[in-house]
């Protein structure tokens, strides 16, 4: 079964084709937010080089957020339309779970995506065999609040994502030698991880090309106001 996966939730545009045994091809560009111009040519480049037709793809996968609103819409709309035209199944995978899946090691994995103004999109995972067990479901959190939580409850932590890079010093100061930063090659979303997660989870996720939507995880104005009052 061949999976084509796409992740455009951050500055990194990435797409990959993978089957049960091998990664056939992956193409990632970390350039700017011009995903709408780059994405389809990138997919075509991979497919042409692999001498595959788009109809050879059996399953489409997209990273569904959180992340850039525009980026998510580009990736998801692309995957939905390809799946629709070819009438193939489609699976959406959390961007944060995808990031955590990059990391192969025991212990606590905390992906972080910059959500601006001192906040990150984050989740807390623990490796459980081939799978990731979620200890904290994807949420938006103040970086200091997250570090407080990690400091209290966890040791042996790996962090990755652009949020981890942005707050590197702060994370290091708070968690000291209990935290490790992912190498650059595993720090950004990778479509190969999204593709593999899609293969693993395809039977339990009931997505189709109609109901697949982004998970923005953005607080509404009202929620922000409440937080401000209570904070």
């Amino acid at each position: 079964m061949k999976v084509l996966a796409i992740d455009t939730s951050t500055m990194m545009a990435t797409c990959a084709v993978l089957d049960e045994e091998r990664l056939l091809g992956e193409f990632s560009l970390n350039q700017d937010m011009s995903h709408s111009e780059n994405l389809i040519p990138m997919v075509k480049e991979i497919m042409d080089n692999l001498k595959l037709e788009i109809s050879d793809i059996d399953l489409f996968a997209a990273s569904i957020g959180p992340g850039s609103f525009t980026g998510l819409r580009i990736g998801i709309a692309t995957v939905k339309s390809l799946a629709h035209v070819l009438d193939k199944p489609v699976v959406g995978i959390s961007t944060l779970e995808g990031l955590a899946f990059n990391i192969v090691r025991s212990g606590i994995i905390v992906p972080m995506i910059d959500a601006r103004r001192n906040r990150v999109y984050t989740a807390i995972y623990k490796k459980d065999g081939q799978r990731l067990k979620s200890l904290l479901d994807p949420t938006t959190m103040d970086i200091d609040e997250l570090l407080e939580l990690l400091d209290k409850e966890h040791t042996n932590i790996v962090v990755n994502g652009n949020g981890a890079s942005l707050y590197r010093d702060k994370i290091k100061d708070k968690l000291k030698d209990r935290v490790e930063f992912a190498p650059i090659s595993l720090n950004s979303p990778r479509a190969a991880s999204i593709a593999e997660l899609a293969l693993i989870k395809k039977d339990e996720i009931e997505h189709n090309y109609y109901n697949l939507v982004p998970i923005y995880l953005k607080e509404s104005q009202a929620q922000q106001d409440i937080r401000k009052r209570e904070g």
Partner: protein
Amino acid sequence: MVKIVLKGLEETEEFGKKLGSLLQAGDLISLTGDLGAGKTTLTKSIGLGLGVADYITSPTFTLINEYRGRVMLYHFDVYRLEGADDLLDLGYEDYFYSNGVTIVEWGDKIENILPEERININIEKGKELDERIVTLSGKGERFEKIVRELNLN
């Protein structure tokens, strides 16, 4: 906070061009002032300073206009928006935190989602015809550098 009195259209245009020439990728200006105070006119001059060749028009109806200059210029008008939630749907973050310069007219309406490091500019009519009083305030290194470089005394 810096207050400048600009005597006439020419001085206002000079100020805008100078400011435009100093702006860098990533800068954000929140532009406030009453209707008719000259927010869009000032933006036109800033655009000239940024090397925008296109004719800059008001984004009141389009919400966002994009121009190609020395760096990209994203010109927002949020007057008609109900608040920050409407901007979420526009994908504002990809503009505010981009490799371009962003100018937000009526930025005070969405203050809680503007980046904290920004340049606030308020423009109001002065006593004389075509006189404008411009007030600059802000936070961050970029703001301080720009005020220094504007060399206002």
